[in-house]
C-alpha cells in the first residue's frame, strides 16, 4: 500500500496570470511527482498540490523565488489517512 508519510499539500495563491503560468511549469516537471488536487486555473483561485517529501524543499524554493504565496494545507498526508483508517476500523469492530 502506497505510503504518504511526509507528503504535504500546499495551497498556492497565484495572484496573476504570470504566476499561474509559473505554477504550470511546475506541473510539467514529472520528476517532482506532484499531484495537483486543484490544478492551476485562474488568478485568485486556490491551487492545491500534494508534494512528496523529496520534492518539498525544491517546490518551496521555486515558489518563494518567484514570489508566489502558499500555505501548508496538510502537514502530513499519511497522518490524515491513518486517522481515516482508524475511524473506519473502529466502526467495523463496533
Amino acid at each position: 500500500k502506497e505510503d504518504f508519510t511526509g507528503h504535504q499539500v500546499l495551497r498556492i495563491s497565484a495572484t496573476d496570470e504570470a504566476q499561474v503560468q509559473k505554477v504550470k511549469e511546475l506541473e510539467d516537471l514529472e520528476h517532482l511527482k506532484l499531484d495537483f488536487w486543484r490544478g492551476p486555473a485562474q488568478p485568485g483561485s486556490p491551487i492545491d498540490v500534494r508534494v512528496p517529501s523529496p520534492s518539498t524543499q525544491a517546490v518551496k524554493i521555486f515558489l518563494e523565488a518567484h514570489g508566489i504565496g502558499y500555505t501548508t494545507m496538510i502537514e502530513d498526508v499519511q497522518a490524515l489517512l491513518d486517522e481515516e483508517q482508524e475511524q473506519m476500523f473502529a466502526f467495523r469492530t463496533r
Partner: protein
Amino acid sequence: ARSTDTFNYATYHTLEEIYGFMDILVAEHPQLVSKLQIGNSYEGRPIYVLKFSTGGNSRPAIWIDTGIHSREWVTQASGVWFAKKITQDYGQDSTLTAILDSMDIFLEIVTNPDGFAFTHNKNRMWRKTRSLTEGSSCVGADPNRNWDAGFGMPGASSNPCTETYRGKFANSEAEVKSIVDFVKNHGNIKAFISIHSYSQLLLYPYGYKAEVAPDQAELDQVAKSAVTALSSLYGTKFRYGSIIKTIYQASGNTIDWSYSQGIKYSFTFELRDTGRYGFLLPASQIVPTARETWLALCAIMQHTLNHPY
C-alpha cells in the same frame, strides 16, 4: 449492517460494503428500488445503478452519478446517503414525492469501481480507471476526459502517465461506455448530474469550448437557486458557472457529452472541503455534506419536473 437503518452513513465504506448496502436497500423497498447492472469495469467488477421508480414505462428520468474519480470518497459516501434519503422521503416529502410520481431517478454510486477498490487496497490518492495502455507502463485514464464531446481537444492530456489522460479514444473506458450505452438506450433522461469533489462549485456546459451554451441563461438560473438552497443549511459557499469560465478548459468531460445528447439540465458538482482537507475530508463531514448537497439536487430535480421538454 443488518438493515439500512443500522448502516453507518458517517463513516467511509469499502466497495463490498456499498454493494451490500444496495442489496439491503432493494430488499427493504422492492416496490421502489431496483438494482441494474449496466456493465463491467475494466477489471471485471459489476457496475450497478439503483433505479428509483413508482411505475410507468421509460418515464422521463434523472441521472445522478458519484465516484467517477475514485479518490473523491465523500461523493460515493454521499451517494449512499442519497439512496437512503430517497426511500425515506418518498411519500413523506411533497417535493420528492411529486418528482417520483412522474419521473424515475437513476443513481450510480460507484462509477469507477476498479479505481475505488484501488484507493482502499493500494493507493488512496488514485483518481483514474485501472485500464492498461499498450506501450505505456502507466495505468488508467481520466474517466472525466474520455467522453465523446470535444474529445482530443485541449483540456486533457495524451500522456498516459498524467492524471488527465483522455484515453486511447472516446468511450475507451468501460466505465464510461456503460453509461453512454445506458443513457442512449433509455432515451428519456432529462437531467444528468455528475458529482465530484472538491472545491465547492456547481458547473454546467461547456468545458471544452468557450462558446456559450444555448441554454446558458436557464442553467445559470437553476445553478443559482441550487447553490442558494445548498448554502441555506450550513452556509457552505459554492460558486457556479460554465466549466471553462469557472475553472479551466476540460475536454471530453461528462456533462458536455450529456448536454450534446439533448439532456438540457446537465450539471457537475464539486463538493466541499471547507478549505482544509481536500480529498481527505473527515468522515464526520460526510452527512453534513450529503445533506447540503441534497437540497441542491432537489432544486435541480424540481426544476426539471416543472419544466418538461
